[in-house]
């Protein structure tokens, strides 16, 4: 009895030990059955993004984009995004989709959009053969910031190369072989891409069923791709890429692509536009290096044959200045039209250098990754530097803060952009 009475006095301690042992057991429990494959899956993320722009009122693109509107020195924009990704499995087939819904508001306007990024049905009669049809975002090429070999995809944003992009309606297939020996893998991906008034109308001229294909080889330890797109909605093009590790922590990659009979509109400062037709050969060389201290360096050089030299771009900027100086409506319309097509594309120059350094677990904080990215137009020496802080240590959250600093003189790529600085923060929650 005395023993029981003694134990009773220690019951809080006993309870604590009991809880502690249950917690210890819980700590290392794992039941894989909770992760069984389900016939229907749904996931995605919600994101809240705040962007604050310092506007470059002397810049050609500021003048064009804000023509006829109240003039401002800064702009704040809030964007809410919901991205849903799902999968429905039935028999040998799988239907998967990804939608993107955005709501955007700044001092000048508000907007919303709902876009199907991907929606495709695929079947696999055998492990080496997959056939699918629907909207799909294929990603070809080995470049980190640019992909001159991305023939059947929307252009990548070099400021956010890892962002999901809207796909293109197509039918495609994947045939995989493993011959063995030095040639470890062969994979062939044929694509058929229709363009009409109601389908893929932004891809090119309508009324074409565009064929394209990619052949992938893993030869020894080198990834090699050959890609081709037949003449149709766009001029014919072909290219190749490679990627390999020279050392376990040192990777090199390259891309080469030629567009045949590419038409490039070129303007002079008076607004006289000539169409230059010729083969455009673009290429990219890059490397990725990881140090023992977990710093990753990415360096790329991009030769963009479809872009404009600094002299050609200078003529366009002069045209914009002339249009505003003279107040000529015709010149302004011409400049606006050119800015919305070829001259206003992101990275419309000829030669670019890209550099990124990112430090994993910096300052001893796990999941904290600061980085800095720099992009330079090599011909006019204008550049953009982007310091960035990212933290993924909170469960299911991704937090990122970036500051874009653009630097360049008059008539330079980054000096004539709409903004001179941008502060961006987003919080993304995955579910």
């Amino acid at each position: 009895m005395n023993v029981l009475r003694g134990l009773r006095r220690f019951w809080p301690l006993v309870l604590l030990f009991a809880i502690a042992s249950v917690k210890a057991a819980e700590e290392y429990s794992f039941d894989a059955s909770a992760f069984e494959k389900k016939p229907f899956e749904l996931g995605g993320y919600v994101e809240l993004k705040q962007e604050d722009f310092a506007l470059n009122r002397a810049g050609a693109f500021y003048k064009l984009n804000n023509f006829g509107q109240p003039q401002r020195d800064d702009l704040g924009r809030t964007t809410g995004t919901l991205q849903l990704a799902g999968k429905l499995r039935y028999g040998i087939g799988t239907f998967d989709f990804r939608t993107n819904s955005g709501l955007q508001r700044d001092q000048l306007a508000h907007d919303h959009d709902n876009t199907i990024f991907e929606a495709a049905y695929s079947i696999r009669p055998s492990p080496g053969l997959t056939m699918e049809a629907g909207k799909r975002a294929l990603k070809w090429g080995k470049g980190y910031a640019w992909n001159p070999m991305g023939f059947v995809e929307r252009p990548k944003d070099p400021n956010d190369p890892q962002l999901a992009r809207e796909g293109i309606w197509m039918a495609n297939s994947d045939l995989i072989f493993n011959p063995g020996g030095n040639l470890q893998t062969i994979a062939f991906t044929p694509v058929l891409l229709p363009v009409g008034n109601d389908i893929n109308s932004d891809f090119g001229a309508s009324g074409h069923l565009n064929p394209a294909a990619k052949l992938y080889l893993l030869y020894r330890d080198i990834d090699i791709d050959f890609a081709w797109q037949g003449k149709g909605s766009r001029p014919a093009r072909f290219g190749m890429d490679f990627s390999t590790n020279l050392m376990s922590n040192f990777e090199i990659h390259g891309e080469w692509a030629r567009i045949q009979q590419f038409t490039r509109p070129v303007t002079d400062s008076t607004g006289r536009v000539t169409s230059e037709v010729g083969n455009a050969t673009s290429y990219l060389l890059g490397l990725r290096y990881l140090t023992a201290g977990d710093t990753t360096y990415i360096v790329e050089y991009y030769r963009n044959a479809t872009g404009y030299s600094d002299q050609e771009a200078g003529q366009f900027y002069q045209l914009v200045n002339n249009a505003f100086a003279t107040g000529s409506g015709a010149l302004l319309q011409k400049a606006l039209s050119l800015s919305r097509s070829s001259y206003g594309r992101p990275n419309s120059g000829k030669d670019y250098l890209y550099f990124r350094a990112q430090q994993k677990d910096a300052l001893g904080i796990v999941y904290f990754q600061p980085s800095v990215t720099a992009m330079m137009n090599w011909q006019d020496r204008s550049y953009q530097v982007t310091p960035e802080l990212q933290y993924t240590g909170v469960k299911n959250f991704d937090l990122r803060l970036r500051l874009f600093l653009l630097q360049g003189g008059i008539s330079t790529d980054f000096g004539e952009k709409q903004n001179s600085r941008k502060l961006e923060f987003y919080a993304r929650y995955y579910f």
Partner: protein
Amino acid sequence: MKKLMWLILCFVALPAAAAIDGTQILQKVDRNLEPESYEMYRKLIDIQPDGSKKEYVLYTMKKGRDKIVALFLSPPSDKGRVTLRLGDNMWLYIRDVGRPIRITSLQSVTGSIFNNADILRVDYSAEYNVETAEEQKGALILSLKAKTGEVAYDRLKMWVDKQLLLPVTIEAYAASGLLIKTLHFKDNKDFGGGIKRPAILETDSPLHKGYKSVMLFSAIKKRDFPDEIFTLNYLPRIEELRK
């Protein structure tokens, strides 16, 4: 004279016969840990010095000595990521990025003490040669040296349970002799199908003081896979192979 020759031969041969065959032991350790081709589920737990945790769940398939693929099932921010290893080559496929990028064995796709070489581990005997094997206090101690410079750790010191022929502790060293991490195998469990092995693998590192990573194993089953799935083109569809 003949008798003398036999005696000399016996003296020469006896120590060799009694010597421990480290290579054979390492091969047995490999097979006792997993069948050559298998599927399994793993949970990775990263524990920070303040006690906070981050967990990942992976589905893994391996074929032969050096083909392995791992699919992230959880958390939602990493779901759909796939890592593939073919010999010394490693790639990471992120669904949003949409194309595989090459990664290195010393990186960690999870950010834990476990690096890619730990997560995509192939047979020890495929990567290491046994330099010495000795018996100490009922345990076998194997000193392993990497076959090439591409292997994540230059040297391993492996304590092996003499009866079960399963690893108990592994110390991983860099070429400089620096201890990178220690792996502790715990909780031997019967997974069925003749697979009896540790269900828990803990690791700590003098380079990450206060941090700990734990790997829990579940549903290890022998299963054969076609070669085609261990290719870059198959990575977006790898989940469809789960039963």
